């Protein structure tokens, strides 16, 4: 019972996932931003209290997303100006 389950689990990791080239695919940036915020704040906070940690992580996460959106807007403007 255990081995077939394990093989089934391994099958999930056997081939790359099909991700379409759509705007919604950009949402794949969110989990990695969250991980970076989690690990960075886990290392940087002097005293590790859950409430403080959570607040700092949310702040950093929103900052990263904000800057990503800002960069995207700048790139769209540049692309628009190049096309003119």
């Amino acid at each position, binding site marked *: 019972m255990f081995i077939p389950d394990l093989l089934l689990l391994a099958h999930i990791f056997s081939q790359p*996932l099909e991700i379409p080239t759509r705007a919604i695919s950009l949402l794949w940036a969110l989990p990695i931003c969250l991980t970076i915020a989690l690990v960075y704040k886990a290392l940087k906070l002097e005293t590790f209290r859950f409430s403080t940690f959570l607040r700092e992580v949310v702040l950093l996460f929103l900052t990263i997303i904000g800057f990503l959106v800002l960069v995207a807007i700048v790139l769209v403007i540049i692309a628009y100006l190049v096309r003119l």
Partner: protein
Amino acid sequence: MAEKPIKNGFLIYVITIVAWLVPGLGHWFLGHRGRAVVIFLAICATFLLGLFLGGLEMIEPQRSLMWFLGYMLAGIPGIISYLLQNPQIPPGLGRGFDIGQVYAGVAGLLNLLCILDVLMRCHNATLSEKAKR
């Protein structure tokens, strides 16, 4: 939280290797249990998500050595993935593969950051102990 000073230099090497092998375990040994759990869960989840997106065959040194080094920095998850992958099967291509590479590589680099943090904490604890004397 102040770390206990590590007087045995050899122990610092052991903690560093342990911190590399299991993400967060170095912090656990230094007494930072909360940080250790967060680091372990975050790095392992990111690495697994990377494998799910890119497939196991992504972990092979011939295709891209730099990415491979990044995966190996994740410690045991990276080593197990390398041992489980079949070199006969060519890795797939596409967007999933690319994003998977980034996820697994970033997980490894974050673990490197954690290893350096463990080393710094050991060093600081030893310095503060010397200053007290």
